[in-house]
Structure formats: C-alpha cells, structure tokens
C-alpha cells in the first residue's frame, strides 16, 4: 500500500473539495474543447467511414440526451422513447412525401405535433411511476408501432423512402455529400446538447432533480410535480423526435423498426453506459454503443445476443456509467 493511496482515503477538507471541483471543471472544459475540435476536424483527419460512424454517434447522442432528461434528470425510466424517434421520422416523411410540404415547414410542424402528442401521452404516463411508468410508455410505443405497420398512410411495414435532406444550395452546398451532412448533424448536436445542459442547470431542471430524489418532498414544497414531469416528458420527446428527423434524413428512409421496443432499449442502454447524471454521458454512451455495435458486426452476425449480454453486463457492473467511473478515477488520483 503506497503513501499516496493512504492519503487519498482521508476525507477532503472544504478547501480541497472546492479546488477539486474547480479542477474537475477545468478538465471538463479542456475535454469538451478537445472533443469539439476533434469533431470539427474529423472529416479532414480520417476516411469517410469515421464520418459515418460519427453521424450515427451524434444522432444516438441526441436520442439518448432526450432519454437522459427523463432517466437521469427526473428518475423516470421510459422504454418507449423509440415512438418519438419514429414519430419524428414519420412526421417529416408524411409532411414532405405525402402532403408535399417543404422541409423547412415539415420539421417545425413535426416537432410541434410531437410536443402536443407528448403532452397528452405524458399526462397519462406520469400518473404512474417506477415499473408502471416503464410499462405504460412501452404500451404507448407498441401502439404507435402497431399503427405504423397497419396504416396505409405510413406504407405499412415497408416504411417510407425518399425522405429529403435539407436543401443547402443557397449557400452552395449539397447535403447529399456525407461531409456536408456531417456538419449539419454536428451543428444540431451542439445546439441540442447546449440546450439540454441549459435545461438541466435551470430552476426547472433543479425541480426535476428534486422530483428524482424525493417526489413527495418536492410536492410538499409546493411544486406541481405532475406539470414538471409532463414538461420533462415533452422536452425529452422533442429531443428524441429531432434525432428521428436526422435519422430519417441520414438514411432517406423510415420504417416501423425505428419505433420498436429494442430501439427504445438501445437508447436506455446508451444513457446507462454513459452515466445518467451528466450532460456528456449520453454522448459518451452513444459513442461506446455505436463503436461496440460496429466492432461486433465485424466479429459476428448474432448482434441481438451480444446486445443482450452487453446490456446485462453494463446494468450489473457499471450502473453509474463510464463518466462517473472516470470522475471517480480522477478523484482518487488527486
């Protein structure tokens, strides 16, 4: 047992804690800046394969950020966020290919419809908590999944194709180019993460955290916890729908699989991998998940089996996520 290890065990004084917090914040800033620079430079640094993976990571990251507001921010575990991902994709699919609306109108209209739907769904779901909440969100997503398969409007289980990417010709760019699309997704991701960070650190976010720690106490303090939970549900749904819009544009395609139970579970897995308490967690989780999935697909075709095993291991061993594990490592070093 070394000298340093013994010192690390003693509880830190108040001054040390403040210094450590400042150090952690500095480290976080440096890390965030490094990641951002790396993300900006990525298309120049490496082949198109990395750009493709990065697009998938960012879309997954936005989806997981939405789930994180419920899971980490409010303590509600939803297994139905895939429905909002799907609604986002189907929204612009129906808007552009069926109704013939321009994309710049379809996207806000889709997000607005999703927000209204989410307010209604959230009002029902947030009457429950714990596993009942998990089950009813699952039931809602299964209902939309069934509707997407059955309805003629959504072209059944074949899905809708020909979903347009944004028209950027007015600045002389073609978004069918992977690099251009990459920067488009990057800008949306930065905006989404910044917004999520702002929401979590706002007074609204503090009330959500209070609900997570003790719903009764938050209610006793006079907060209308029901409304706050519905608010969190709506914001989470908008984030998931935004991810769905990007996903549909990325593949030019949307089908009922995007609303499946498994996809919602993948989002929850990303949040748990990354750690449910930080803003960066969902992005880290999405990165680990997408890279692991790619790595696995090289090794084996039995994706589902390894997805399940991976999921179990993460839940059993890294419940607090990689970001928390890293923080803990930093703590014990200093």
């Amino acid at each position, binding site marked *: 047992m070394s000298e340093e290890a013994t010192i690390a065990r003693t509880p830190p004084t108040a001054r040390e804690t403040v210094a450590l917090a400042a150090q952690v914040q500095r480290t976080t800033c440096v890390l965030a800046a490094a990641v951002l620079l790396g993300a900006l430079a990525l298309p120049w640094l490496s082949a198109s394969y990395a750009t493709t993976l990065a697009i998938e990571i960012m879309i997954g990251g936005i989806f997981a950020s939405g789930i994180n507001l419920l899971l980490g921010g409010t303590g509600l*575990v939803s*297994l139905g966020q895939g429905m909002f991902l799907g609604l986002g994709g189907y929204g612009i699919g129906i808007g552009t290919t069926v109704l013939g609306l321009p994309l710049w109108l379809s996207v806000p209209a889709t997000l607005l419809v999703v927000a209204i739907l989410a307010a209604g769904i959230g009002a*029902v*779901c947030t*009457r*429950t*908590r*714990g*596993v*009942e909440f*998990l*089950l*009813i969100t*699952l*039931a*809602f997503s*299964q*209902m939309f*999944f*069934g*509707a997407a*398969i*059955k309805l003629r409007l959504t072209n059944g289980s074949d899905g809708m194709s020909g979903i347009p990417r944004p028209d950027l010709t007015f600045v002389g760019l073609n978004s069918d180019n992977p690099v251009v699309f990459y920067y488009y997704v990057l800008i949306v991701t930065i905006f989404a993460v910044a917004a999520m960070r702002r929401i979590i650190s706002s007074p609204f976010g503090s009330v959500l955290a209070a609900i997570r720690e003790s*719903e*009764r106490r938050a209610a006793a303090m006079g907060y209308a916890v029901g409304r706050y939970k519905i608010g969190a549900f709506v914001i989470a749904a908008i984030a998931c729908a935004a991810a769905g819009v990007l996903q549909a544009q990325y593949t030019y395609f949307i089908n009922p699989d995007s609303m499946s*139970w*498994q996809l919602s*579970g993948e989002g*929850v897995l990303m949040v*748990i991998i990354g750690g449910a308490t930080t803003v960066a967690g969902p992005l880290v989780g999405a990165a680990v998940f997408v890279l692991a999935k790619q790595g696995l697909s090289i090794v084996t075709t*039995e*994706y*589902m*089996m*390894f*997805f*399940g*095993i*991976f*999921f*179990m*291991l*993460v*839940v*059993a061993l890294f*419940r607090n996520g990689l970001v928390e594990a890293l923080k803990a490592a930093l703590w014990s070093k200093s």
Partner: protein
Amino acid sequence: MQVFLTQVLNGLQLSMLVYLLAAGLTLIFGLMNILNLAHGAFFTLGAYCGVVVGSSTGSFWLALLVGPLLPLLLGIALQSMVLQPLAERGRSTHLDLALLTFGLLFATAGAVEWLFGSAFLSIPTPMALSGHLDLLGISYPAYRLFIIGIGLAVAAALTFVFDRTLLGATLRAGVDNRAMVTALGVNINALFAIVFGLGAALAGLAGVIAAPLTSVYSQMGITIVVETFVVVVVGGLGNLRGSFYASLIVGMTNAMSQAYLPEVEMFAIYALLIGVMIVRPQGLFRSVERVA
C-alpha cells in the same frame, strides 16, 4: 352467432395462454418487486425445448412434460444466482433488475437464433387432440379446447395453492410484508427462487402448448411478453386473481378486434391499457393501495 361463438372460444384460448405467463409474472412482481421482462424468454425456451423433445421422440406428451423443466431450472438459477446477489449488493431498486432482465430477453432471443437459426419451427398437434369437437352447434378444434382446459386447471390449482395451503399463506404474507415473513423464520430466498422457477415453468408450459398452434421462432417471447405486461398492469401488478380477469379481458379484446375490426388489431389492447391507466392507474382489480 356461430362466428361469434367461435370468436368467444378463440378469445378464451388466447386468454388462457396469456394467463399462464401473466400468473408467474405477477406473482414474481408481487413477491420480489422484480419486473421480470425476461419472462418471454422462458416462453421461447419452453417452446424450443418442446420442439427438440417432440421431434426427437415424436411424443407431444413427453415434450409437454419436459418443456417446462429447462425454464424451471433456469428460473431458479437466475433468481438465486444473479438477481438475488445483485439485490443484496444494493441493486434493490427494481428498475435496475428490470433492465437486466430486458437484456436477458434479447440475449435469449439472440442465443436461440444462433442455435436454431431463424426458421419457423412447429410441433405437430398430438393425434388424440387433432380432431374437432361439436360444441353448441359449432365445430371447434379439440386442441384449442385443450388449451382452455389447461389454463382453467392451472388457474384453479394456483387459486387452491394460494388460498388454502401453507405455501400460499406464506406467499400472501410475503406479498404483504416481506420483512415480517423473514422475521418469522421463513427462508425467503428459497421461497423467491421457487416462485421464480415455477413462474418460469408456467411460461415454458405456455410455450410448449402454443407451439402446435403458432410457429416457433426466436422472437416469439418478445412478442407475447408485451401482451402479458398489458394483462398484469390491467389486473394490478402483483394481483393473481386480477390477472386472471385481465387475461380474459385482453384475450377477448384481441380475438374480437381480430375478427371484427382487423385494422385496430395491433393496438386495441394498448388502447384498453391506456384507458385503464387513465381511470385506475393502480389496475382494475387492485384492492390494496401501494404507497410510493
């Protein structure tokens, strides 16, 4: 009228199949506070076990006997070797364990696909039950009546055990107040493992008896388990009697929508669930209020 009667019987048969799953799921939740999302995995395993035994020996009855054994053993092992130790190490929040079993559900489906491929398998209907029976002026497949019979028999047996035996009394006490039961000297971990195993075995039994009717494929459990969740929530989580009635409601809704309103078939039961959640979020048949 005859069409309607056939649909009622179909609904009854669906109800009983779902009930076999729901009974175990709701007992496991009521007693251990674990939402076992992997319950569908035992359904799949039972069915595949039945297919293997049935095709190698040619006997449906042997398959029916052996099919639930693997789920029974795996259920006991899962509870006593994975879930219980995790709960004791502070993962008692049931959401963690629910997510773990979610992973297990997909791992099992993947493993089955890896072992058996993605082909659709089946068990032939046993000779003795392959005919039709005349019933109230309609001719109905004997095998479906057999399923209804098994479901009712299991329901009766469970009610008897639950209401009239020492095991049942211990179970009811465990649902009400787990700490007190432990204090009275009951080995609660053994009880948990037994209930988990029996619940898994019932799911496996459902898998075997469903095999001659529906095709056996790796994701069959994932499909049916969502219906089972609807049943246990409508019946009230942890309420055995409630899940019997809820099975009837869900099975009938399913059968009737399939017959008369096929366009709403995929979401009729979910609409039902959402309606129940709006009116009575604690389930239709829950008498005791659960405190948050």
